[in-house]
């Protein structure tokens, strides 16, 4: 029967194909363009006379002698100290992902296995917390953090990002844990396991898909965050996204706008690769919440 349901007319197929091509063009082209342009000089990428220059690299040939130049990358990574930002991002991302998965799996497991009414209220509170704009929270952090002298350092930011990430992680893992049958851990409890042993040895091994999905989202949050990192870190400890913003603020007048372009490409590429690798998990994570609703 499948074949009959999925039989579509010729016009429809044509329309579909055109529409998809149109959408893909919109979604992919900006990145391709920026990637291509990052190997040119500013006069080409922001060409006043003709944007064909950006494709053929007329000024790039004049200024550097070759059609491609790595100047922007080399300068932004070394002179602009983008390597430091990349290192900070690595530290923040790895720590946030690990800690929030650790806290999240424990909490979500408890939420999914408890039959008391307070679990509902905790989940509702998490939903409200999820809706809080991050900047309103940051405005609450700054003053106490200054007083406690913990502003500007990486550990503070890591803990804050873990906390901000918890509501979503809890909801996501909660719906994953719900799909694991209760009988599994109940039988382990009868055999004399403690709750923690049941969690550690029985439930976690079957939970890997869920954990990877939650981890991917934590990773994206930590990697992409701007609001928290820009306001809670000092210049030295900036991660990549606030660093790019800082490049824009100062470099525009300094004349080397291409630093920002090169660092945008450097920041985007690893993320795309990770997502390409874990694409299936990402989609399953996005959909668990929706299908339930």
């Amino acid at each position: 029967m499948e074949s009959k349901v999925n039989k579509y007319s010729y016009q429809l197929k044509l329309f579909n194909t055109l529409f998809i091509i149109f959408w893909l063009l919109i979604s992919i082209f900006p990145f391709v363009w920026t990637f291509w342009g990052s190997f040119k000089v500013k006069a080409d990428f922001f060409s006043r006379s003709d944007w064909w220059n950006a494709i053929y690299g007329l000024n790039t040939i004049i200024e550097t002698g070759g059609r491609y130049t790595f100047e922007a990358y080399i300068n932004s990574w070394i002179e602009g100290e983008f390597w430091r930002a990349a290192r900070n991002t690595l530290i923040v991302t790895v720590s946030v992902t690990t800690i929030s998965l650790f806290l999240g799996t424990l909490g979500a497991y408890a939420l999914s296995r408890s039959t008391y009414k307070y679990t509902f209220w905790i989940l509702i509170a998490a939903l409200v917390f999820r809706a809080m704009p991050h900047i309103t929270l940051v405005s609450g952090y700054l003053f106490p953090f200054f007083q406690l002298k913990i502003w500007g350092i990486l550990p503070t930011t890591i803990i804050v990002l873990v906390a901000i990430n918890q509501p979503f992680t809890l909801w996501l893992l909660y719906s994953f844990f719900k799909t694991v049958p209760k009988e599994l851990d109940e039988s382990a409890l009868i055999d004399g396991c403690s709750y923690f042993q049941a969690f550690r040895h029985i439930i976690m091994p079957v939970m890997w898909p869920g954990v990877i999905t939650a981890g991917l989202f934590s990773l994206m949050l930590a990697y992409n965050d701007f609001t928290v990192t820009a306001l809670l870190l000092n210049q030295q400890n900036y991660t990549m996204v606030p660093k790019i913003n800082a490049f824009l603020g100062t470099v525009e007048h300094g004349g080397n706008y291409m630093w920002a372009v090169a660092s945008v490409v450097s920041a985007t590429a690893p993320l795309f690769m990770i997502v390409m690798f874990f694409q299936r998990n990402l989609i399953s994570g996005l959909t668990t919440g929706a299908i339930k609703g």
Partner: protein
Amino acid sequence: MPHKTFFWFFFPSGLAMLLFIGLPIFSSLFQSLHIETQQILIEVETCDPFGCEMEMQVDQDATSKLRDEKPMGKFNGLGTYKDRNHLAFSELGEAWGQKTSFKNFISTLLNLPFYKALLFTLTFCFTVTPFVIVLGFFVALSLNVLSKSIKGPLIFGSILPMIVTPLIGSLVLFWMIDAQGILGASLQFIFDDPNLSLKSSKNLTWMMLIIYGIWHNTPFAFIVFYAGLQTVPQDPVEAAIIDGASRSQRVRFIVLPHLYPVATFIALICLMDNFRVLEPILGFSAEGVAQSLSWMIYQDLRNETQMLFGSAGATSMLTIIGVGILLTPVLLRTWKEFKTER
């Protein structure tokens, strides 16, 4: 699970949320009721070859001493909420008293920073969301009928705008749409107007930001709809085919009703996320003509001379109230579901 076990399992996660999400809200509230210590000015006589004159200077010592004593500043009650940069009651009262027409009053209202930001934030939220839902639905519908082998890469291509952080996404678009970028230059060529620049006009900037919002949010809607489409029951669809329903009729009477809850979910998440719009404004350097509530807080905290905690706190509280209003329908619905489940 016994209470005690539950407590220890949930404790670390709960503590993190309480300390870094729950408490900051109170901290913001507390800050919003205080106002920063003003700089103390003293009169000093400065002399140069052309003579002596008296001028006002900041007394650094006295100011920093006062700030150390009372880092929070002095208690201000609801004063910050009422001032010109927030709810501006007195300005509004005055404008209402002097108004020549209703239109006149509205224009005064929208020139006050808070209401200006509120208008942009709401316009952004409520324009982006419907477009995202419709566009996302069509992308999902079109991708769903393609053959399995090419779906994977196509899905990856489609979700790229969502993966990148808004700052990077808006920069990437901005560099193209800039008067010297490929799109901006092409538009100048098409309209034959060398001075055409999307940055120059308020309406065009707003439009550009909204287009960015749609671009960034559509992949999310698309993925959720796509997953929803996989769960559409096939039996009614087959029955409809036998009864002679066309494809559009099938979509309208079977698929759409099935996806209705999914659409409300997307609308909710979109509204919630777009209410905090900040990065696109920075990425497009659109601060001049488009300010959002989040941007106001950001600006207060980035203030060069002194961080305006009081002002930022007040805007934060007002923003949180706004989020609360947006969230009420969902909370009510979840509550009803919970009631019926038991």
